């Protein structure tokens, strides 16, 4: 059933991200093998991310490090298992992502933030 599929589609990745946040808090920037993972700093403000075009390597995990310059924003990537985060001012919000396939992945703010919210988007360009 579509609705159940929908829940399953997002529940597992969200749980993973939730758990990963503890991992990142304890071992920021390092993977299980102790290798340093790339950290990409992204600022969010009405109504843009900077940078908003980010190149990644297929299968290589990165840590996105968000800060908000004004108000609460969201971050959501439907095509990466529904990974999302809430970006609050005064805090650093970290999200670990791994793109399994080459291609482009759109992300957007999923917390309504005003007149221009719909244009608050960005793109991951994932290369082989």
């Amino acid at each position: 059933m579509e609705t159940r599929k929908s829940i399953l589609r997002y529940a597992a990745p969200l749980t993973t991200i939730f758990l990963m946040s503890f991992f990142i808090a304890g071992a920021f920037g390092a993977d299980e093998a102790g290798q340093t993972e790339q950290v990409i700093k992204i600022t969010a403000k009405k109504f843009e991310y900077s940078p908003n075009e980010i190149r990644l390597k297929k299968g290589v995990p990165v840590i996105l490090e968000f800060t908000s310059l004004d108000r609460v924003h969201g971050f959501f990537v439907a095509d990466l298992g529904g990974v999302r985060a809430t970006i609050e001012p005064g805090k650093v919000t970290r999200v670990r992502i791994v793109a399994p396939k080459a291609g482009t992945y759109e992300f957007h703010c999923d917390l309504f933030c005003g007149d221009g919210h719909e244009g608050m988007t960005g793109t991951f360009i994932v290369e082989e």
Partner: protein
Amino acid sequence: MNIDRRDFLKLLGVGSAVLVLGPRNSAGEPTGMAGQEDFFFVQLSDTHWGFNDPKVNPDAAGTLKKAIAAVNSMKSQPEFIVFTGDITQTTDDPKERRKRMAEARDIIKKLKVKNVKFLAGEHDAGLDNGEAFKEYFGKTHYTFDYKGVHFIAVDNVSDPTSSIGDAQLQWLSDELKKLDKESRIVILTHRPLFDLYPQWDWWTRDGAKALDLLSPYKNVEVLYGHIHQEHHKMTGAIPHHAAKGLMFPLPAPGSVPKRIPVSWDPAEPYKGLGYRGVQAKAKENLYVLTEYPIPVKKESAEPTKKESVAPWKPEKAY
């Protein structure tokens, strides 16, 4: 003739109206309920009063008025009218927000039909949890009955996460428990309850929970807005119908890289804008949806002729 929804959908593609199959018995015969009557209502959506970009709509201040004049000139007046959200364009300024709501409300008051139901969109309610909307248009979730049909207005925008929320879901569950599984139910909401295209934020984060609650009910229809275009989709046995907007059209889901308004075409002004008539047929137990354009002529134009809707096909067999 024994016909199910899938067969019926396959028949679509020609004709002047979309027919939505209502409840039928095991022999495929309509199961109209005694005491019910036919009725007609109109759905308007996404008026975005306060929007200002002449490249997108050079008649931003006139489009809603034209739609209202067109509704007023219909020979058969609707018995009530529903606005399915984004009545106003959002603004950070609470004073300006209220000014826009007051202006929109005053324009809407010019409708001959005084039974008007309102739903909020995120532009109306997403920045203040619906506070201003409630002042001008009333509750954001509620129910009403009309001639045997139970209408449920679901708010999936006052929470800025575009969620219905556990409290409202509990309310929905409680409301549904009062109804027979055969009851005719129309859900009015702003955002799609299903995952239409989450890549463009065209979904409700916890919409699946609402659909699960509705799934035991055999005669449910969903009317919504948000996506500024006509769209029809079945999830299980539930048909969902998005209405056109009244400020600017948006592209078909995923058809272009970015979700930006379709530019105004001077050769075809108001193209992609319009409103919907809904004829609820009791005996046949079905709904007839008719899409109306914005009349290009003056507001005193003749009643809009019933226009053929763009043929729609289910994205897959259900």
